């Protein structure tokens, strides 16, 4: 069976979907993607994102992950800065084989784990071979 196609959405910059109204930096979170016989599992690092400020949508085979991060400190005397803080945004195009109604997500210690179950039709089936 061919792997379910997973690729990063590579849209030209002028496409309006990623255009933001809020100012500030947006970062692309790192993701691990594993495909098992039953599902696709996506694990992404979204430090500082609370469950309330996380938005995950699956529409027209596009999985969109938006994590809003409120500035954790304002007007402080920042002596050293080795990383920036900003919202997270990433999109994946997923093959047409996902049962959208059964997608589940959990967020634990800044890691988002998404389970995208495959539809029954595309699950690998073991073919019984009869001895004749």
């Amino acid at each position, binding site marked *: 069976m061919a792997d379910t196609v997973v690729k990063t959405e590579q849209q030209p910059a002028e496409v309006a979907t990623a255009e933001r109204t809020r100012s500030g930096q947006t970062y692309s979170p790192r993701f691990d993607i594993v495909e098992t016989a039953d599902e696709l599992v996506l694990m992404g690092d979204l*430090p*500082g994102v609370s469950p309330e400020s996380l938005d995950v949508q699956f529409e027209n085979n596009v999985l969109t992950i938006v994590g809003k991060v409120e500035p954790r400190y304002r007007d402080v005397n*920042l002596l050293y*800065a080795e990383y920036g803080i900003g919202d997270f945004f990433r999109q994946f195009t997923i093959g047409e084989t996902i049962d959208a109604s059964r997608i589940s997500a959990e967020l634990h210690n*800044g890691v988002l784990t998404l389970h995208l179950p495959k539809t029954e039709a595309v699950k690998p089936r073991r073919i019984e071979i009869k001895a004749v």
Partner: protein
Amino acid sequence: MLSTRWQPRSIWSEMNRLREEMERAFGGADLRRFDTYVFPPLNLWEDDNNLYVEAELPGFELSDLEIYVNGDNQLVLKGERKPPQIEGGTWHRQERGYGSFNRMVELPEHVDPDKVAAEFKNGVLTITLPKREEAKPRRIEVKAS
């Protein structure tokens, strides 16, 4: 063990982000072994009474993190992130890193090691290090003569 000296701000954050962009451009190649990448990147700020150190440590458990203050101006962070336990399956992407780290930094002020507090929320570790009395800013009254 080498102590990591604080670099002037902006250079590190710029470099780390640049490196991540380059890794992505090169199809996820890990450039970490080619440069002096430090983990975790830290932000540090202060007010009159405390120093604050923050690190993004998603996927770590509090029980996997160790924080030490050596003397009164050295902070040591240790931790380990375990890889996800998934039986079988095909990996399409692996962008996240796993393993253990050990980072030592020199603090710009003397702190009271007995009063250091740490908080871990949504994968972000914040350490509050109260400054020693002598390190706090003192307002000098200027008397008119």
